[in-house]
């Protein structure tokens, strides 16, 4: 078909994979048939289908956040999503690329940015985070597939560095009575509270139980999402359901979530209490952004390793760094930085832990 490799290359450059071959057999219907190389069948999956499924899995925690922190979480999320989509379109226009806002990846970034900021911040903050995440964190580096940091986490890290007070104090106490307009338009300073991890870090375990209770009620409240925290991180139940759905669909695997959460639980149990083996592993997993990070951010396709063995090492690394920051670092919660620190190591891990070949050649590798 092609005489030379240059011939093939030219066909490649044209990106037009399907060549139209004109055929006109007299006894047959006249028409154009497509000619291309195998395989001729493709699965029904697509990048857009994956992305929109993830978006769907993030909607229940978003709805829950409205009941826990009030209607302004919806406004923050909407601003964040719209600005991410707009920034994506503008970036792609500026860089002369195809505009792909319909694939849903910017929507995910927008939702995740909102999910990992406090519910009491100004709705203008996510706009800045969107510029940082989408333009600098994604498109400058080559667009989808080429960014080596998780864009949403990059946006949050940018906000944390630029607006440290708002980002570490605009926490709201959970609403237990469904009065979702309670905080709408009120001054945040009057109602703000502290997150469980911050209370534990700064005032110790006694203050923690005083503020959040203990026993089954504590775990139930944390599991359902009735605790101070970032907008989308509190509802462990719904995040877990969404994550399990993604695993069921085959869009992600257990390797990263299990290794991240397992490491956090194990290391907290070992070192997180008074003396060795006295920590509370369940509380560690239900606090902060551990579940959201493990199921929706650590396993981001682009920034995580691709081989299963590398994914486990990567997950353990994230878990270990998270616990290190929580227990010894300056911040009460560490999963954001833990993931960002592990992100650029992904290609290195992939290089070390390559997939196992079917069988090596006789006489060993060349």
């Amino acid at each position, binding site marked *: 078909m092609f005489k030379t490799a240059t011939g*093939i290359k030219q066909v490649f450059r044209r990106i037009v*994979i399907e060549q139209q071959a004109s*055929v006109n057999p007299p006894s047959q*219907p006249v028409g154009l048939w497509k*000619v291309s*190389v*195998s395989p*001729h069948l493709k699965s029904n999956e697509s990048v857009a289908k994956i992305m929109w499924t993830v978006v769907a899995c993030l909607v229940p925690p978003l709805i829950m956040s409205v009941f826990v922190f009030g209607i302004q979480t919806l406004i923050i999320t909407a601003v964040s999503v719209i600005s991410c989509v707009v920034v994506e379109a503008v970036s792609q226009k500026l860089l002369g690329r195809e505009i792909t806002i319909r694939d849903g990846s910017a929507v995910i970034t927008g939702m995740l940015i909102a999910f990992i900021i406090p519910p009491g911040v100004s709705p203008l903050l996510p706009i800045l985070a969107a510029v940082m995440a989408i333009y600098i964190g994604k498109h400058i580096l080559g667009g989808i597939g080429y960014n080596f940091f998780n864009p949403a986490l990059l946006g949050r890290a940018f906000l944390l560095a630029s607006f440290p007070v708002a980002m570490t104090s605009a926490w709201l106490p959970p609403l237990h009575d469904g009065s979702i307009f309670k905080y709408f338009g009120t001054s945040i300073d009057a109602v703000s509270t502290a997150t469980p991890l911050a209370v534990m870090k700064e005032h110790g375990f006694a203050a923690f139980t005083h503020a959040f209770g203990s026993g089954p009620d504590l775990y139930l409240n944390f599991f359902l999402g009735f605790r101070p925290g970032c907008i989308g991180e509190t509802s462990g139940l719904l995040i877990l359901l969404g994550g399990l759905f993604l695993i069921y669909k085959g869009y992600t695997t257990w390797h990263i979530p299990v290794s991240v959460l397992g490491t956090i639980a194990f290391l907290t149990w070992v070192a997180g209490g008074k003396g060795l083996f006295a920590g509370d592993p369940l509380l560690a997993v239900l606090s902060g952004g551990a579940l959201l990070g493990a199921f929706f951010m650590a396993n981001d396709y682009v920034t995580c390793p691709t081989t299963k063995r590398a994914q486990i090492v990567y997950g353990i690394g994230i878990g270990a760094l998270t616990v290190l920051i929580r227990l010894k670092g300056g911040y009460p919660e560490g999963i954001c930085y833990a993931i960002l620190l592990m992100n650029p190591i992904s290609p290195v891990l992939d290089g070390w832990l390559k997939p196992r070949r*079917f069988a090596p050649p006789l006489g060993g590798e060349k």
Partner: protein
Amino acid sequence: MPVPDELDLILGQHIGAPCMPTVAKRSEVNEGDVVGDVKKGLGVPLHAPVAGKVKNIGMSGHPMRTSAPSLTISVNHDTASRVYEKEEWESKKAADLLAMVHDAGIIGIGGAGFPTHVKLNPPADTPIDTLVLNGAECEPYITADHRMMVEHSSEIVEGAKILLKILGIGKCIIGIENNKPDAIAAMKTAAEEGSTYQYLISVNALKVKYPQGSEKQLIQAVTGRKVPAFALPSAVGLVVQNVSTARAVYDAVALGKPLSEKVVTISGKGIKRPANLLVKIGTRVRDIVDYLGGLNPGLSKVIMGGPMMGFAVSSLDIPVTKTTSAVLFLTEDEIDTRPHSQCIRCGWCLDACPMGLEPKEIGLYVEANRAEDTEPLGVFECFECGSCAYVCPAKRPLVQFVRLAKMKAKRKA
């Protein structure tokens, strides 16, 4: 299907050297006459499937190349087709049986088309202990081997015994995927009846997965052995043959009938009546289409071979060769023409690759203009099954990338 008026016998039917015609233009040939042979190099003779007259020695359409040297026979419909009597073969010597396999023009019918007599004569330093028969249909859509196993199970088993005698061994395992319970049942019965003290033939039901029809994957599924990269199955003591090849060996040895017809799956929504047809080698696709009532509107792609590894063609004037397993007529909704986008590093291709390669990396190298540096990534171990491109959510043409990488890496070496 009935014999059409003309047959195009492509002289290069398979891997190896093409045949040279041994008959002159306008000469009369009888059914089973040798019309082409290989003087030097790897190859087997080519036979006239029917009686007729050599109309032309020239070019005809070819599934992979646009055209190829061929021999056109105009069929003489007045001559009755030959009747083959069953002969006794058990007393013949192995070397004579091997010669009969060669003389009957038998090649691997599964698709690769490697001459069978060469496979049956492995190097002396690699002793063979087991024959594996491939009953795992190589690709989706194709059901030719399936029907063959249901309808001709005892011939396949007898063919297996001939193959065992040639190889001088006694053990044969037939691997069949468990989505064909009727084929498994038929082959089990035939294998029980056919097994003797000397020849033990068994059936191994396999989990359905693609690409199980691939030699190395089948061997692993059936015996647990792994054929090293770039090595032949004989390196682990095995010879693999397709079930249809075993049937052809039976025809050649027990009936004295050369390989001149084969079962081809005709399928897809683009053909009026899908079927498995026994067609003469050289039958043009156009004649098959006419026989099956024509094409449906909306036909978008015609493929010689399976949907994963077959070749899309642009004409119906292409003859069936000894390696044609299927002709598929696919409509727009059966194929995927969505444009490809950037790799999102989801890693699905890594999980899909049966050889444990990293197709995404090969694709990224090719896109970065470094196709020639892909040898360490194992491009030459890839047999282009298409699994990676099938699962890719970004619809990336990974098989094309691999082919380009192979070409450039070869040139660099």
